[in-house]
């Protein structure tokens, strides 16, 4: 059994969880929701197993390194981080509807990694620039940050749907928490994401300083992560200092996440240092 196969299977387990969440939301039934949580936890276990196995496999191939070194591996970790976050919120706030869109994002990320012909799931040895202890800290924190923003994005979408159509007592969205709660949750997730994105940028800077002798070089990926940071900084200031709530915060959160996606994928079409994130 090899890790890529396990992870391909896990993709569909996440997909199944997503379908169950959707069923639970649409038919307002509790059972599919409970099952969805259970299936997600199974998927998370499989996801972690896959990552650990991949780590072991890389050592068996003679050039062991943490599985955080290319687009495939980062997508797998990204999915895990989102799944853990949404399950955490679900348990803490005792509401499963929040997970509906997040689980869809996890499925998409996993499916992209496992099924896209452009993404190689081969374990490759590290090129000299990536051989650093900062690799793990940098990638881990960046993707925790991205995961926070992804969940914030999913909640913002739910917020907009609830706000426009689902305020009635018996409608499809009656199980969805009230908009104030969703707004607060978006804020929480953005703070989580911002915290880890900041650490991600900082660890990246420290790493760059030890590899190339400069902590900031206006490389497109660096610049785009800073643009993302600015957008979420706007959200935080507008909410905390100007008291913005609701629609406007949800919109900034959605814009912010598109910046995240561009930082993640789009930058590979621009010239720069982070080529290992590219589609081979």
């Amino acid at each position, binding site marked *: 059994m090899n890790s890529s196969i396990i992870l391909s299977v896990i993709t569909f387990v996440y997909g199944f969880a997503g379908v169950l969440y959707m069923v639970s939301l649409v038919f307002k039934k509790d059972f599919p929701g409970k099952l969805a949580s259970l299936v997600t936890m199974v998927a998370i276990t499989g996801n972690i197993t896959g990552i650990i196995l991949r780590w072991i496999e890389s050592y068996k191939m003679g*050039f062991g390194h943490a599985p955080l070194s290319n687009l495939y591996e980062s997508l797998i970790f990204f999915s895990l981080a989102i799944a853990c976050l949404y399950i955490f919120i679900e348990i803490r706030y005792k509401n499963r509807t929040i997970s509906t869109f997040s689980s869809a994002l996890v499925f998409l990320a996993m499916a992209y990694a496992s099924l896209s012909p452009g993404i190689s799931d081969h374990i*490759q*040895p590290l*090129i*000299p*620039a990536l*051989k*650093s202890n900062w690799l793990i800290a940098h990638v881990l924190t960046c993707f925790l940050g991205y995961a926070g923003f992804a969940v914030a994005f999913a909640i913002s979408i739910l917020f907009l749907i609830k706000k426009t159509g689902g305020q009635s007592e018996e409608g499809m969205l009656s199980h969805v928490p009230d908009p104030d*709660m969703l707004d*607060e949750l978006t804020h*929480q997730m953005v*703070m*989580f994401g*911002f*915290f880890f994105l*900041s*650490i991600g940028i*900082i660890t990246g*800077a*420290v*790493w760059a*300083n*030890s*590899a*190339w*002798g*400069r*902590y*900031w070089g*206006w490389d*497109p990926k660096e*610049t*785009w992560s*800073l*643009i993302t940071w*600015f*957008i979420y*900084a*706007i959200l935080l*200031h*507008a909410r*905390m*200092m*100007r008291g913005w709530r609701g629609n406007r915060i949800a919109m900034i959160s959605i814009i912010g996440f598109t910046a995240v996606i561009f930082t993640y994928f789009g*930058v590979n079409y*621009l*010239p720069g240092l982070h080529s290992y994130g590219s589609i081979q």
Partner: protein
Amino acid sequence: MNKKQNQSRFGDLVWKFFASVHLTIITFLSLAATSIIGTIVPQNGNPDFYFHKYGEMLYKIFFAFDLFDMYHSWWFRFLISILVLNIIVCSIDKLSATWKIIFPGKPPVFKNKIKNSSIRSEFVTETPPEKLEALFQKIVGNRYRYAALEKTETGFLLFAEKGRWTRMGVYAVHLSVVLLLIGSLLGSLFGFDGSVTIPEGESTNQILLQDSSRVLNLDFQIRCDDFSVSFYDSGAPKEFRSALTLLKDNKPIITKDIIVNDPLRYEGINLFQSNYGKLPPRNITLVLQDRKTGDEQVRKTAQLGEKIMLPDNQGEFILTDFSDQFHFKGRNIGDAFTGTLFLRDKGTFEVLIPYPFPKIDFQTPDDLQKIDALQTQSTGSLPDRIPLSVTSVNTGMVYTLNSALGETQTIPEGLGRFTLQEFQRSYNFKGHSIGDAFIGKFLDPDGTEQTVILPIEFSQFDRMRKGKVIIAIADLQQESIPSNLIVSVADFQEHYYTGLQVTKDPGVWVVYMGFIMMILGCYVTFFLSHQQVCIEAIRKGEQTVISISGTANKNKFNVQKKIDGLSMLLKR
């Protein structure tokens, strides 16, 4: 209104302008939006490149706005200055209010605000207030840093709070941004960023600065003792390693092997492994063999450019050049030497010596033949008339013409005229040798003239011109005379140079302090809060009504959870 009032009013306005969160949001927005430009327009390229890419008009506009180095332009720096000013003024402005909350003498403040908070929980008990006092104080005291009891006519009020200092977190974040910018300013004022390339075995103290292209002399010498590169089986690079020695007054001070991610640091100056390259190799072992018998006639170690006399006064041989990426017939064959073999009775031969071939299996006749094929030099004896094939794109007809150099031929179908002008050995097309080629001139019926290149190896080459006719050399028989010696290289010593990044940045510690402060500040600001609770006990007849209310400066949802939890605890 007198003048003084006027001035202070103006001052107030300026202060308010820089203290506003609107300004923060607008500045962030401008920085985010303009930063995108620099990720689309390549930065710090050379003017030719930009001129070609954008045309004259855009080039002038982009140039005027410094878009080719926009992150160091006056207007981008101006935006950053606004941000810094905004952060400082805004922080000072808010700090005075925060200060009063944090150090008001005796906490807590705003008692009514806590007492009347909408986040609350209530329960009723029969125990009289006096008996609850000590118990409540103990429970609350365990969970909150500060607790104070006030007696009232019908019971008591218990105020408690913690995390008052967390209100400072946001100022730490703001200060951290200022530190980052001070650090980067220190770096650009008192530091430098340069590069140097050093061949193995040599030393230098001259650094080429990145931004100004000036040369900087270090007060020590950097010597590259050795460079090595290793690869994975896949061909991807595994490690670049330079053995460096720093010398002062010709005495070694430090010796260290540096690799990527592990630089050498000395007196605030850092040396990073950044690139490498191959230099012409040294001590090349040449072998010259007889074409027919394979007998070794000469084996000699030579340097590039060194003349070797052949035995029996046959002639001489000289190695002229080396490339680690030699292009032969459009294919990169890797390491290869070129040389000139002069044989007294046969003439001059340009020879190509690919290095791996003789090494694979030196002695088999097959390999000898392969090298032989590369070294059989056609000596310019072209036929008098060159066969040309001309294809009409419209009709698909192919015509064969025979033309001598300098002759003008008329192409059928009224497609124009063609003149074969000259012949060149190893024609250089956009930096690549495309082998022997003819060059001609095509005259279109509409009067335009085009130069046509006809490489012998590539019959489809003229398709690139996208004209109405495709011209090619049809089938050329070149007469060739083989040399009676075959030259190969048995061994050589690699010679590399190492490319180092040399930097000095005295501001980096300020920046790192900023980093740490930002992480801590963000943590405090986002995840900790100033929490205050008020527990009110009122005796109403036989019962005591306990109401717990609370507030926090952020995350109000959690406050309710905490209050509920506290309520559960007190009930017991």
